[in-house]
């Protein structure tokens, strides 16, 4: 691609960018959150959400209102917006959108396989699947017994197929293997997405690469944290780390050797970006969890993505911000419905 996307970006993607910026402006504000937190019941929450951009998206829900209903309706709304973007996009952008959906598809596949493992019916799990990652072949996932089966029978024709290169094995799919499969898929997905953005160049690369680098490193940290005390060997662990992050290669090697949280923190201390994050993590009950800290950082990066123009990052950022907002609303709604008001304020504010 030539430099200076400014010249022709708007020809193909100007409409959608304008649209997504309008959508971003409709995210809940700080004042909205303050009001939401004051709600006594879910009905109050509904009334307040009506005054925001959500409108009367819950109008047709019969009583009683539950958190999961709110969640589904919000997801549906996001999905509608996303579908609109996707249906109106032209080539490089539509590929970008496909990459975005891949992560949800991976999650859905894994969810279905886990469900099959626990002998739950497909329909039951389908409800829980993220609507953005839906695809037709999805429901046939439980036919497969090994990853290569899964690949050759079900996923060959989906966008997920290229990510399967590393995980073709004849292992039976038990819980650990599924988790390994998920991480391997994610690793190759992130690397492919990173490569796509890098090759695209321009502002898109400048915005998306840091976001994806952070995403990769976050996965590395999470994998490390989750593997403490499991039978996963250190060598195996290292193969799961996505290699497109800032931690690659030195940090990943060190992470692979880490044995507890303290050692992980020491690895992070070598990196200017992650040091303050790990310092913000409170120990024990008082402070924030590592997850929250990562989310906050993600929100910050996504909001910053809107400060540049003529790139695809805004679409990614908007989806992520909207997801964060949905998590926040669900969190607040859960706190309200469970009468657990002490923690209601620990949502992640979107600046």
């Amino acid at each position: 691609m030539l430099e200076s996307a400014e010249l022709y970006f708007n020809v193909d993607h100007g409409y959608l960018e304008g649209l997504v910026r309008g959508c971003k402006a409709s995210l809940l504000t700080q004042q909205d959150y303050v009001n939401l937190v004051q709600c006594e019941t879910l009905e109050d929450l509904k009334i307040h959400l009506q005054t925001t951009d959500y409108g009367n998206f819950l109008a047709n829900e019969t009583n009683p209102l539950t958190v999961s209903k709110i969640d589904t309706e919000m997801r549906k709304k996001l999905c509608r917006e996303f579908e609109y973007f996707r249906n109106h996009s032209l080539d490089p952008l539509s590929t970008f959108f496909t990459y975005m959906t891949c992560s949800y598809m991976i999650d859905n596949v894994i969810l279905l396989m886990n469900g099959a493992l626990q002998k739950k019916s497909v329909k039951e799990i389908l409800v829980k699947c993220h609507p953005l990652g839906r695809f037709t072949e999805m429901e046939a996932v439980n036919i497969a017994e090994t990853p290569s089966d899964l690949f050759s029978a079900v996923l060959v024709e989906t966008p997920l197929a290229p990510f399967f290169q590393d995980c073709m094995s004849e292992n039976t799919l038990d819980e650990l293997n599924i988790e390994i499969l998920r991480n391997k898929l994610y690793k190759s997905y992130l690397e492919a997405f990173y490569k796509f953005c890098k090759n695209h160049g321009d502002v898109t690369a400048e915005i998306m690469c840091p976001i994806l680098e952070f995403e990769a490193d976050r996965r590395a940290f999470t994998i490390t944290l989750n593997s403490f005390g499991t039978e996963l060997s250190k060598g195996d662990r290292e193969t799961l780390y996505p290699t497109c992050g800032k931690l690659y290669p030195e940090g990943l090697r060190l992470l692979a050797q880490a044995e507890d949280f303290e050692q992980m923190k020491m690895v992070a201390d070598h990196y200017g970006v992650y040091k303050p994050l790990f310092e913000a993590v409170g120990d024990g009950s008082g402070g924030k969890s590592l997850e929250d800290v990562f989310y906050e950082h993600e929100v910050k990066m996504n909001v910053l993505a809107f400060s540049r123009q003529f790139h695809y990052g805004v679409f990614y950022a908007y989806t992520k911000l909207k997801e964060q907002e949905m998590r926040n609303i669900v969190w607040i709604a859960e706190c309200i419905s469970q009468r657990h008001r002490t923690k209601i304020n620990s949502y992640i504010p979107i600046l």
Partner: protein
Amino acid sequence: MGSLFRSETMCLAQLFLQSGTAYECLSALGEKGLVQFRDLNQNVSSFQRKFVGEVKRCEELERILAYLVQEINRADIPLPEGETSLPAPPLKQVLEMQEQLQKLEVELREVTKNKEKLRKNLLELIEYTHMLRVTKTFVKRNVEFEPTYEEFPSLDGDSLLDYSCMQRLGAKLGFVSGLIHQGKVEAFEKMLWRVCKGYTILTYAELDEPLEDPETGEVIKWYVFLISFWGEQIGHKVKKICDCYHCHVYPYPNTAEERREIQEGLNTRIQDLHTVLHKTEDYLRQVLCKAAESVYTRVIQVKKMKAIYHILNMCSFDVTNKCLIAEVWCPEADLQGLRRALEEGSRESGATIPSFMNTIPTKETPPTLIRTNKFTEGFQNIVDAYGVGSYREVNPAVFTIITFPFLFAVMFGDCGHGFVMFLFALLLVLNENHPRLNQSQEIMRMFFHGRYILLLMGLFSVYTGLIYNDCFSKSVNLFGSGWSVAAMYSANHTPAERQEMVLWNDSVVRHSRLLQLDPSVPGVFRGPYPLGIDPIWNLATNRLTFLNSFKMKMSVILGIIHMTFGVVLGIFNHLHFRKKFNIYLVSIPELLFMLCMFGYLIFMIIYKWLVYSAETSRVAPSILIEFINMFLFPTSETSTLYSGQGHIQRLLLAVTALSVPVLFLGKPLFLLWLHNGRSCFGISRSGYTLVRKDSEEEVSLLGSQDIEEGTNQMEDGCREMTSEEFNFGEILMTQAIHSIEYCLGCISNTASYLRLWALSLAHAQLSDVLWAMLMRVGLRVDTTFGVLLLLPVIAVFAGLTVLILLIMEGLSAFLHAIRLHWVEFQNKFYVGAGTKFIPFSFRLLSSKFSDDVA
């Protein structure tokens, strides 16, 4: 005109509503639409207000009603429009209504659910029969051992299998058959192939008639398929894949006997279901028909109820919680009506203690209410589009009624076009009660709302058209021209006269291309044409030069009169708001500035018109040069209009120059002096004694709040000053900006009025071109076939006249007229910083009902 000249006086009233009767009182108020409620709970979020529960109940009712309307529409039952004047339901009835509606909803949902279930059943059965019919052909072919059957996936040697053959091999042969979406067939086949590694045979055929999809209700094409497979394992997989692709799988009969039996059974069941479904639908229709009768009034009632509760949410409770307190803006003229409405409401609810009201003094600026009727509404809208007038300031809409159509007509001066526009507007006005017009689409509605404006615009255009003597670009000779060509011939004159003047004889007429009439020859010019431009100009080659000069001068004269009038209106504002000093320090310098420069220009124009005649025209000085010389003081003596011109001009210039510093500094210095207790400005004191006497401004400026409270509430204008902190720098800046704007504006705005000339010129030229290009061509054709050609030519001429000259030119003239009013006229006096008075009235709601229901 009284009510249109200034907005109505408003007062702030407090309503004390007994909590038992509040609902009825508000209902009575809503019907009358007299008052605007103020939100007393602004800092309470929407879900923490008192009547949230009731609002929610209304929303629930609305949801049910929306559901009903949706079902009724789906069943194609006409919705009768009930009366809209029904009052909000009394509280006792609300519960009853809610119960009724809920019961109806439950019943309806159940019946619809049953119906859907039955339909689905029926659909399944129909699908099954189709499948049986189609698969029969598959099997037949199977039995016939067709060796190369192209629909089969390519198989190895053992693909040629029939049922008996498989049995011999000892494997269990299974069949799965069903229907699948048209679009999914290919992927389905591929997946089957991949998963079962070819151990299946898939046969499919398109179903000839499209069926409904039970999930989405869409009518789509389906494929019938038959999968033959062997082995349990594969059977499971096949079933899972079928699930994945949302196939409708039906049991496959193994023998022909079984197939026939099933078919028969299905047929009887389908018939049964048909009758049941029919009955259910009939019942549903009955229920819906009954609901449809009352749904419209219910919708309106619920809307009214919801509106009442929204207003109640704006009220605050008093300490004892027995009484709701509402604050309202009410026009003083309507206070009686308000009292009566409250009494009515209390009586209706049978309360022992009546609700009452009292007016309270306030410092806030009340909303602006200008009562309009259908005629003045359009003009008021033009003004409001610029800005709603501040409370009690002069409303330019009164003058706009005449000036707007007039300025438009100056630009659109054509008798014929004006008449067409007038007829169109007259048509709209005469049919204004026609329902189609009221509900018409956007552009038509725009015309409809502006019908009275159009009417006047048309009338004025006819008038200016007569003045310009333009009718479809042609002049009309009504009274006979004032010019005589005959008088130019030498034969008519005595020889003595012939010597002095350039006269025509035969050779002159024959040999010159252009002939000039000389008005100084006696008899050639017999006095002006009685009305407007002499039609003879239509023949003259210098017509344009003549008209341009006339129209340009006319625009300047009109413009300056218009602007001066604006400044004069400012004086009315200052008088009303008791800011007399503004008259002396702002308005009068402004007037002097304007009149001494441009007023003098007008004087010169008219003077020249009156004084110079045909004989003396050659010595007449140019106004432009004169006007420029007024500022340049040329050393050499030039020709003057009148004696002593130099002195008068110098005097005027001096006045102009002097008014500028007064405009810049007068008001700020005066205010500073007032602020400092009128003491330290020794110099200016003597000059302003007159102002001091009657200006009540000073009283308030002294900061004595007590006097303020006691005085009449009406003087809101002065009160603003007290609340603001005195900031000399700011006042100076504002006044400086205002003055600069005004002084520069006088020049640029005068130039801006030249658009009157430019547009009228453009309009005249455009219609002239249209005539020359079309009609002249059409009329020149010979007499035999001319008629045939003339008809389409006239049609095209008429079409283009309407499209280009009436609509396009009309719009552009309209826009320019709006601009002249908004910018050039209104910026001389109009603040337009008010808020509109929006009464709580059910009538404002009811317009939306029809949209919602329809």
